[in-house]
């Protein structure tokens, strides 16, 4: 009897200990978890990396010229489209539409601009390898700005000659296509210099992670219990940090996550075509328009022609994600909860192979992850 009572008491103590260990841990994080959370903090980002392909990347005069060009609708076929038509500063430098609309309609969603200088490849398929090469794409796209380099070189001579020459030297006589291209390329380099100044401001998550790292204790009143639970799922059960890692919540890579095709659009092979395109690109790191043509490591060691690239798309940053619906490369999902539901179900990809596996998150867990994602909002600075 006495032995049994003792055994019962011991068992109860054991059960209570184990139950408390299995219960939600709230703001208590292990050393390893604190390290992981601080690796996601904006203060880990560091300065914008140098761009040796753009000699004016960090020239403030180039950035100022680039800012003017960014907002100038004269740089389009119909005089109504500027970069800011789709990259709207008040909206995270995007447009809130599933497909971008310039002089026509594109097949993809507008991407935000902040923090992009940290990415080795641009666009959803990574078909450009610098901000300046990226900026030139939409200018000559028939459905975006819709104009030609010759038209833009004429516009620069007419409206920006002194600003241009202060940065790049005397404008070439516009007798050849090469001369027009030289001006066109410099427009891209000026716009890139401006875009390099656009970055993210800290969010509530950053304050939480920074205080936790600095003091060893989570701050009170910064994140709600649901947001903290969502953060724990984000780095744990839901495996979000497999791709959304680092201070910009992206590994800058390309993955097939089984995102459904958007009705009415042509088949889109994503990175498979993008990797080939960047190697062939007229304005890539190795091109004669680049200010450094050797040691283009991103191209030299590029993965091409691999089946895993089929319908893989760029992993976007999750900073300010709650402020820029709709989601995915063609705006397939209108809400964050629809995105989380997609990752939870992990449906088969319309082409290629989805890397997802079902997460088996219950409704409460899905809500908690969404709550956490909403804590990633801060300002966009320029």
């Amino acid at each position, binding site marked *: 009897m006495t032995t049994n009572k003792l*055994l019962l008491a011991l068992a109860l103590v054991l059960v209570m200990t184990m139950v408390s260990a299995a219960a939600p841990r709230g703001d208590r994080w292990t050393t390893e978890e604190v390290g992981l959370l601080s690796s996601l903090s904006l203060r880990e980002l560091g300065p914008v990396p140098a761009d040796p392909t753009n000699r004016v990347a960090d020239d403030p005069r180039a950035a100022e010229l680039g800012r003017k060009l960014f907002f100038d609708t004269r740089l389009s076929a119909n005089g109504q489209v500027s970069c800011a038509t789709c990259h709207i500063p008040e909206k995270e430098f995007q447009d809130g539409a599933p497909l971008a609309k310039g002089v026509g309609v594109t097949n993809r969603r507008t991407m935000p601009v902040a923090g992009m200088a940290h990415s080795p490849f641009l666009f959803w398929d990574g078909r450009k390898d610098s901000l300046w090469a990226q900026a030139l794409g939409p200018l000559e796209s028939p459905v975006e700005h819709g104009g030609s380099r010759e038209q833009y070189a004429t516009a620069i001579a007419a409206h920006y000659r002194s600003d241009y020459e202060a940065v790049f030297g005397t404008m070439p006589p516009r007798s050849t296509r090469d001369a027009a291209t030289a001006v066109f390329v410099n427009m891209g380099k000026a716009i890139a210099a401006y875009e390099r100044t656009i970055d993210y401001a800290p969010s509530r998550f950053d304050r939480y992670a920074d205080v936790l790292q600095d003091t060893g204790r989570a701050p009170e009143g910064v994140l709600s219990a649901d947001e903290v639970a969502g953060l724990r799922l984000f780095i744990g059960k839901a*495996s979000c940090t497999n791709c959304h890692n680092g201070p910009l919540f992206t590994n800058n890579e390309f993955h097939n996550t089984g995102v459904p095709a958007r009705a009415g659009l042509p088949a889109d092979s994503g990175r498979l075509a993008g990797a080939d395109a960047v190697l062939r690109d007229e304005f890539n790191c190795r091109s004669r328009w680049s200010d450094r043509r050797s040691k283009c490591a991103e191209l030299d060691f590029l993965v091409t022609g691999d089946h895993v690239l089929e319908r893989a798309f760029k992993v976007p940053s999750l900073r300010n994600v709650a402020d820029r619906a709709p989601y995915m490369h063609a705006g397939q999902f209108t809400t964050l909860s629809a995105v989380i539901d997609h990752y939870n179900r992990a449906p088969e990809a319309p082409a290629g192979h989805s890397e997802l596996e079902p997460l088996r998150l219950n409704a409460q867990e899905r809500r908690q992850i969404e709550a956490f994602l909403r804590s990633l909002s801060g300002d966009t600075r320029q």
Partner: protein
Amino acid sequence: MKTRTAFVATLVVAAAMAVTGCGHVMMMMHGKNVARPAAIEFGTGPRASASREFTATLQPDQPLRPRRMHTVRVAITDAAGIPIDNATIQVDGGMPQHGHGLPTRPRVTGALGNGLYEIEGVRFNMGGWWEFKLAINAASGSDVVTFNLAL
């Protein structure tokens, strides 16, 4: 009496399952039921190849960190410690628990002599356990050395 003992035993077993089961579920979550090697198996070497033909040591240009492009030198010797020159080396790797390979195609870009080779284009795109494999082909034989790296 017997009922109570059985009840106690059930409680203990249930509690134990609650704890150990949790870790099991986490493993299943990733779908690839591959156990992470013991801590002693990790690091940049010296590391013996599978058949102990060679010993290789990695020398990264800077501490390996996720999302950064690295250049990594590798020093290769035979089992007796004599440097191996004129080897060809194929680079491969990935994350066994996630079922994916390296995000870039790194390759040997220079033989520096004295068994030292330079590998460029090395990048790891997330934290965690990575394998970094070198298939070494030398006059004396061929073998594969697999490094376990914790990013």
